[in-house]
């Protein structure tokens, strides 16, 4: 492969790639992101390959395994170009039909299409409500390119921004543009990237580093993963632009070892860049040298904190250190180091290409551009969504997410992962941006959005996140290590029905101290799930403490299963299914749950035929005494 020695070489290569592609040629794209992969998209792709081979169509029709399309709920996703026919939940058995009907016969298979609310099928991806309300600036190319092909990326204008920067702009210009665009860090804090870059550039020292933080670890969040898996070159291009602006010649990508596909695709991307001379010395014939090392994380959540991440890159235990002197001044090996999140880097080429003004036109006053959210939990359409900053939560959950699953009632949405908080229904019209979420007691975080319905107990949710953090705190400072453990003790007590009057004050005091005194952002934000649930759902905590009642019926110690003797038809189904033999009764004799034996697994409730509906969950009330000797079914 010839090395690219000038801007002209890159442009020639791009022209060649574009010329070699016939836009009217049919192309089957199959989402190979992690979600679809779990739905066996690889098998679908293999079946397509062999089917095309068998029918002698391999030359006529292209097959492309792309990055994540986002609509993970309905994977594997197959989109057929140039008509952009979108088939959802495609199984290997559907493949031969798709080839003969759609590709050869030009007919659409209706049963594989998305069916809208009005019952009408929707043919094109962009017309599906899930996609229609999104603006996919960063994530959009995922569905068009094969992440393991640098040519695909270059064909779509890849590395054009890098060329522009190297040949037309000074480093100061680049920083100025990024500052003007007001690009804020997508990793959680929302710190303005341009200012961070400037600090790093101005910090004394010859060797400087740029780092991609791909240590995404929030439960339920996978947008950085999908971006790095699906379009690694966009991240690398952003990183190189940043390196040029800052004056760094060495980059690091800190990626979780638990993301094997991301590790693989980034590795392939870097190899391809080296082959084309886009990494190494004298890039595109200029004086700019740059190389990247991939550092695989060893499974510590706290390593996503910037100073801990840098300590880990140095080869030591990933533990945060005080940042009174910023990492932009003293980071890896005490040298100026600029760290940004995957999504932040990925925004950079777009800003360079289209300008700060264009970027500033999207979003709200304080938060510009778009943000990718991982919309999960009890919504109908789970997946990755990219929306302009400022879109109300309600629109994301109802228009894109398609509302709550099973027609349940919305209760709250948790944003920002373990560091974030919950937002109740009364704030559903909140425009989603960095500042509004913080004001509501939550945070943007890296973009996790977990939707909860009425069957969720907020105390239990708070306990879940604290439990996660108790394991993931590095344990260095007392506020975080001891504070989380003691908060967990209190929460466990509340969930078990032995909560005390003063518990809410204790939690508030602890949380207040941790926010102010903990060493790093993990500890400072650890109380958020607790404090925000207390803020919005205080009465639910009080129900647990005072009435020993869990309104959502989640906390095991506070619920009992009860069979209504009026409704029970003595069908024996629950008796047979109870794993611990805790149901008494018999043929024609009304069943009774023996509370002492019951492990509260809920099997009886699940198996009781809906037409009887005799089993119910009780909380905070006395269980009616069962009649001695059993009652006969009427």
């Amino acid at each position: 492969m010839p090395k690219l020695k000038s801007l002209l070489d890159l442009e020639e290569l791009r022209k060649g790639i574009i010329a070699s592609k016939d836009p009217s040629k049919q192309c089957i794209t199959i989402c190979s992101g992690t979600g679809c992969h779990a739905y066996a998209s690889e098998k679908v792709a293999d079946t397509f390959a062999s089917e095309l081979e068998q029918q002698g169509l391999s030359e006529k029709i292209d097959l492309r395994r792309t990055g994540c399309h986002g609509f993970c709920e309905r994977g594997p996703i197959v989109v057929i170009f140039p008509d952009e026919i979108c088939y959802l939940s495609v199984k290997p058995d559907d493949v031969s039909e798709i080839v003969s009907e759609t590709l050869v016969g030009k007919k659409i298979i209706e049963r594989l299409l998305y069916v809208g609310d009005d019952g009408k099928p929707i043919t094109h991806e962009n017309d599906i409500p899930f996609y229609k309300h999104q603006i996919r600036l960063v994530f959009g190319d995922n569905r068009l390119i094969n992440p393991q092909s640098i040519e695909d990326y270059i064909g779509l204008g890849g590395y054009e921004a890098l060329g522009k920067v190297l040949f037309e702009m000074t480093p100061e210009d680049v920083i100025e543009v990024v500052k003007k665009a007001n690009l804020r860090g997508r990793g959680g804090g929302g710190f303005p990237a341009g200012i961070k870059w400037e600090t790093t550039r101005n910090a004394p020292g010859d060797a400087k580093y740029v780092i991609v933080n791909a240590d995404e670890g929030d439960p339920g969040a996978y947008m950085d993963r999908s971006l790095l898996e699906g379009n690694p070159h966009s991240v690398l291009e952003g990183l190189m632009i940043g390196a040029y602006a800052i004056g760094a010649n060495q980059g690091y990508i800190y990626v979780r070892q638990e993301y094997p596909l991301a590790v693989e695709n980034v590795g392939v991307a870097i190899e391809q860049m080296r082959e084309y001379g886009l990494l190494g010395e004298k890039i595109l014939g200029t004086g700019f040298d740059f190389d990247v090392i991939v550092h695989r994380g060893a499974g510590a959540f706290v390593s996503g904190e910037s100073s801990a991440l840098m300590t880990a890159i140095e080869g030591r235990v990933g533990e945060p250190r005080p940042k009174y002197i910023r990492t932009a001044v003293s980071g890896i090996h005490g040298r100026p180091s600029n760290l940004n999140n995957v999504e932040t880097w990925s925004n950079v080429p777009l800003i360079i290409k289209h300008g700060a003004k264009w970027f500033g036109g999207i979003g709200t006053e304080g938060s510009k551009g778009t943000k990718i959210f991982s919309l999960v939990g009890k919504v109908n359409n789970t997946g990755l969504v990219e929306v302009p900053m400022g879109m109300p939560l309600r629109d994301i959950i109802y228009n894109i997410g398609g509302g709550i699953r099973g027609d349940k009632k919305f209760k709250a949405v948790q944003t920002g992962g373990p560091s974030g908080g919950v937002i109740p229904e009364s704030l559903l019209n909140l425009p989603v941006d960095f500042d509004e979420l913080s004001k509501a007691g939550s945070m943007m975080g890296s973009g996790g959005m977990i939707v909860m319905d009425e069957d969720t107990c907020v105390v239990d949710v708070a306990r879940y996140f604290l439990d996660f953090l108790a394991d993931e705190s590095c344990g260095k400072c007392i506020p975080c290590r001891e504070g989380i453990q003691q908060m967990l003790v209190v929460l466990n007590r509340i969930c078990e029905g032995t909560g005390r009057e003063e518990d809410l004050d204790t939690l508030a005091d602890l949380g207040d101290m941790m926010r102010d005194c903990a060493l790093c952002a993990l500890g400072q934000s650890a109380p958020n799930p607790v404090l925000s649930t207390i803020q919005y759902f205080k009465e639910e905590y009080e129900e647990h403490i005072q009435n020993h009642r869990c309104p959502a019926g989640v906390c095991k110690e506070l619920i009992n299963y009860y069979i209504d003797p009026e409704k029970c038809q003595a069908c024996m189904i629950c008796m047979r299914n109870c794993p611990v033999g805790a149901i008494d009764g018999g043929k024609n004799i009304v069943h009774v749950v023996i509370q002492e034996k019951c492990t509260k697994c809920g099997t009886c409730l699940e198996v009781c035929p809906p037409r009887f509906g005799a089993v119910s969950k009780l909380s905070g009330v006395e269980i009616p005494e069962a009649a001695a000797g059993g009652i006969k079914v009427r």
Partner: protein
Amino acid sequence: MSTEEREKQNSSERQTRRAVSDRRVEGVTQPIAPAVEAARQVELTINGQAVEAWEGMTLLQAAQSVGISIPTLCHHKELSTYGACRLCSVEVIRGRRSRIVASCIYPVEDGIEVLTESEKVAKHRKIILELIQARWPWVDKELLEKYGAQPGRFEEKTDFCILCGLCVRYCTEVKKANCLGFVGRGAERQIVIYPERAIEMCPTCEGGNMGCRSVCPTGTMPNEFAHTGPRFGKKLPLAYPVKSYSEDNVREVLHTVGDWRMPWVRSQTMPGK
């Protein structure tokens, strides 16, 4: 760049990395002593008192230089800064912005106002003391009373070690012996002794006096390896006295260790119980 060249660069990168990490020890973020060359004078106020300090000093050093005392636990002037116990947290006000910082690491800045005993600081320090007390019930009474800490507010998780890391830093930085280290994360965090290093290094340490014991504020470090336990009523940040030592004891204890997790900490009955 050819593969060979790249390999060369990578290896030199690795070497620099190693050289740099060798110079730096666990947790060090800045020089402890004021930078000698071109140290600039900095003016700030602490509890309303004007204080002159040198650039590179910490708030704690500046406070101590004028006789203002701030309680500390994981700090030792001969060791690198660590900033883990947060007992030395103080309030720093710049203009209208106030924040809580750890005074043992926070560098002095021109024009800041430092409050070492503000309402907020006292409130936080009280909870931190209560948390320490839950783990190590022998915290100095005077200190507890001063901040109105309520012993027993939090569930007791009694353990001798409060993970201040002084022994680890002492062994690593002063003795360069590397016998001690941390393992585990979060609630599982522990200090462990590496027997193979300890057998070799401890008998020669401070003429057999095991220097790490002299910095341990809780008496967790094995004293003569003879299960003496902590002393009652000792001030929290005080050093624990070193007692006589015999080489045989080290050998004996280390051999009975089995796994490295300091069984003398776990298996011993707690004093006062």
